């Protein structure tokens, strides 16, 4: 009974630890999914410098 209780305790501890660290890590450092790049930079002037 004592051994079973200890195993149950450790299971709960490990599971919740892994789940929370995973969720928090994703929240703190989210990775972008898919990005695009233009072929040329923007035309940000009208020639009156």
């Amino acid at each position, binding site marked *: 009974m004592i051994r079973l209780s200890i195993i149950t305790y450790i299971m709960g501890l490990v599971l919740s630890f892994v789940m929370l660290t995973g969720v*928090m890590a994703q929240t703190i450092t989210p990775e972008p999914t898919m990005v695009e790049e233009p072929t040329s930079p923007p035309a940000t002037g009208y020639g009156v410098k």
Partner: protein
Amino acid sequence: MKKIILVLFLFFGIGSGLVLARYALPEKKINEVDSEGTTSNSVEEVRVKDALLKKPAHMSIPKLGLSNIVVEHVGMDGNGQMEVPVVDDNVAWFQPGYMPGSRGNSVLAGHFDKPTGDPAVFYRLELMEVGDKIHLTDVDGVTQTYRVIDKVAYPYDNFPTSFVFGKSDRKMLNLITCDGTWDTVNQNYSNRLVVFSELVE
């Protein structure tokens, strides 16, 4: 009775795991005085800065006297060129690219001048120096602070698009405007000035 004890142990384990996980997370701290003279060393504040912004709404650059500049969201035209802000006093975020706060190069573009000849929003961008701060605020009012790390003028015909818009291990925010001389034939400035900045951590 046995089941009750086991369930109690399970809940105790879950509780201990949550507490351990909370304290096991790395606590990053900053302790610096920014250009406005304010000091920040709050862990919670850093976590907010680390978090991905929702779509950016406003930008401020104290060094240039720019405050709450509206951020438009643009894409590419039919030729694959990054579009520009509709209003010359606004800046434009390249929406198909990286989100500010994520690892990669997010980009804001602003006009150098206006059709009237008056200076536009990034007319004085060349005055930015390493260490200057850029503040970006999203639609919910969450603000990130970026620190300028470099400033480079590239020829338009040899612009390193992937370097400025592409992947990076750092959380970058790059500002672009026109620079150089006006090419009357192609109706275009010869260079593009890029100010590279990194999320303050």
